[in-house]
């Protein structure tokens, strides 16, 4: 019942010991619902145990397995063979690591380098608002949460940052998003500090509204929308009470 697809993966490789980079072709047969992470494992098991690649949860929740397939950044644990053939209209796929961090070996990159941009926006509450008089949780009404809850789904997979047309001197779409979330969060009072980051040289001025981020986001978050709010001047010092 299962159709076996014959595929060619042209994988960009890099060996840090010899500092050599090259593209290596792998030919394999795979069932329709194997995911690309299953293909990499199959290559390790049957052809080349030295091919290095990253993954963790392998079901779209952690954001570790991001790569460029035929130029498009996506999560390789979510790309089924059948869907890939349908979407890209080919049986030949180029596989490259994301471009936002140095390559360590083959498809493995130093993600922590990319995370530095997220660290810069301080992904936590800098100055908490005074607690509720009852002593328990803050009260946040659903209609307030609704405005930014989609943005909290970001898993920092860096697909948006890879697709973004501005590659240099920019915080990047996901870091911008993380900052916007806390600006819209009523519990954060350090609005001035966050606005300074948002409108800094490496912030909104660098966004050219190409919408590539929203286009590629595996979580289907409309990242561009939140950055657009910033560019429209939606956020003032009383952002969270708007």
């Amino acid at each position, binding site marked *: 019942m299962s159709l076996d697809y014959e595929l060619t993966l042209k994988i960009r490789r890099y060996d840090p010991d010899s500092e050599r980079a090259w593209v290596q072709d792998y030919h394999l047969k795979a069932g329709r619902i194997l995911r690309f992470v299953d293909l990499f494992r199959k290559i390790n098991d049957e052809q080349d*145990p030295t091919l290095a690649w990253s993954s963790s949860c392998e079901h779209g929740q952690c954001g570790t397995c991001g790569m460029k397939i035929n130029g498009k950044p996506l999560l390789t644990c979510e790309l089924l063979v059948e869907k890939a053939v349908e979407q890209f209209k080919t049986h030949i796929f180029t596989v490259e690591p994301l471009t936002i961090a140095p390559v360590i*070996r083959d498809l493995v990159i130093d*993600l922590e380098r990319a995370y530095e941009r997220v660290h810069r926006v301080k*992904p936590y509450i800098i100055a908490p608002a005074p607690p509720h008089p009852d002593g328990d*949780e803050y009260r946040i009404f659903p209609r307030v949460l609704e405005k930014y809850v989609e943005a909290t789904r970001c898993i920092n997979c860096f697909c948006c940052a890879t697709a973004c047309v501005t590659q240099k001197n920019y915080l990047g779409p996901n870091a911008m998003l993380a900052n916007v979330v806390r600006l819209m969060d009523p519990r954060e009072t350090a609005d001035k500090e966050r606005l300074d980051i948002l409108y800094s040289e490496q912030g909104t001025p660098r966004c050219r509204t190409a919408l590539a981020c929203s286009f590629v986001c595996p979580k289907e978050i409309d990242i561009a929308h939140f950055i657009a709010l910033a560019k429209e001047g939606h956020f003032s010092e009383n952002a969270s009470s708007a």
Partner: protein
Amino acid sequence: MKLAKKLKIDSVLRPDVLVVGAGGAGLRCAAAICNRRPGTRVVAVTKVHSPQKSHTSTAQGGMAAVDPRDPIDKVVYHMFDTWKGSDCSADQNIIKIVCESAWEQVVWLERHGMHFSRTEEGRIAKRPFGGHMLNFGEVKAFRSCYEADRTGKGIMDTVWGESLRHGVMFLNQSVATELLFRNGRCVGAIVFMEQNGKFVAVLAKATVMATGGKTRMYQVSTNCRQNTGDGLALTLQAGLPVMDVEAVQFHPTGIVGPGILASEALRGEGAILRNKDEEPFMERYAPTAKDLAPRDLVSRCILTEIREGRGCIHPDHKLPHVWLDLRHIPEHIHKTRIQEVCGFFCKFVGVEPQHELCPVTPTAHYQMGGAPTNEFGEVQKDPQRIVAGLYACGEFAAASLHGHNRLGTNSLLELITMGKVVGERVADYIEDAEDPGDIPQDAGSHVFSQFSGYLETEGQERYAEIRDALRVLMMDQVGVFRNEKGLMEAIEGLKELKDRARRMAPASKSLIMNLELIQFWELDHLLDISMVIAQSALARKESRGGHYREDYPERRSEFHYHTLACMTEYGKVTLDRRPIDMSLYEAKGEHYEKFGIIERKY
């Protein structure tokens, strides 16, 4: 030229505390240490690319917590549910600590920015979950606090943010390969950094192990690629015992292929399990509860159907399974309450649940056991003595909150409650603790010979074959159903696999980002822990919680204790016992009789 001569400690770090594993528990602990003792230098080691990628971030369900001011729900009901759910094998002192501090810790998360789902009044919303009841089992309780269907992500993001705020230093894609001791006190560990192939000796006044779960030795598992039980292996290596490892929780409906969880909520909304003849077989096994019978029972029923030839084999993943039928469920429910999980079927199996049958099979999900600790998270070398300087929390530890069976929404709760308890204990300990001193003389002796072994072995054995054989063996013989014959065969089978594993030659001898090297190391851990699980399961001649013996299907009072197991030489497992804490029962306070030896009937 022998590689062992080339392997050496390349650098030294001297923080106050070393945390191994930067998931929900590890980082909650780190945050608690820094809150209690500002300025403490903490180094956290994580196997994944960044702490946010830890397996905690994939947890969906929620955290059970009773507000002491709740007019309907009471902390004692939560404690009772946990005790009953554990099949009378959890430690009652731990149940008390966790349930009593639950609400406070949920509020801590909220105050530090977690995006909980809200009620119309803006308060933290709650929903019901299996096993959580009011009035000692009468009717379902709305006890679980949640962030949509990504509660684990919310917790992870929050504790990670707090760790960043406190200046915790992270070593990513790094693994602790050898614990270091001086005069019986743990003084740190040797950490191998995968990215550059270097070893760093981390010398710390206190070491906290929070390495999470281990179920990757099973063919179908919900666990991430990195959950290979490294922490348990390190514990065994140090001559220390592990506790209740035979208690593995199998979730009945894992999505075939990836093993991802298809939540119990589906059956709650009316989904029906069917065999290859499309018969709704649960009617036969549990005429009243049917598809909503307890998890371990449903898992056994599914596997019985498969064993008796009424299952199907998936053509792509070659896994046996049954079907979950959601076709009759109204469309609006598909689109609202079960949207995300239905999305999984679509995304990962290419199946449309509204019109097609969904393939499911029991999947290894959670480790109830782990490193035995007391109520402060201090790791024990035997029931009376602790190891100075060594702590454990989270899924890796067995304090034990869950005994032999875990209730849903209690594991996320454990991360933040015990994480905080252990963190504060560590902060107090390091206040007066002696400096760890210099690198111990023999530091590295174990890991250097181990790694050179991996890199220099010649042989024809293939890693993938041994790994797959292990996973099938464990699934079949040390899985949902266990019996004496199967377990003994498993033990022999494991010895053979361990032997074969000594003859795997790597294709590359590089130390830098060498996937194979790490895989060989992980395989050894899986083989080690599998042996301890098999032998512990063989010795426990009863059924309790997640441990089910076909030849001893009832719970037996003479097994009312925790299993302790040590193994320093492969195959030679020495067993011991730790008493189960019955302090709630013994206190003879209000409702004490609920905490005696009770039946586990729902």
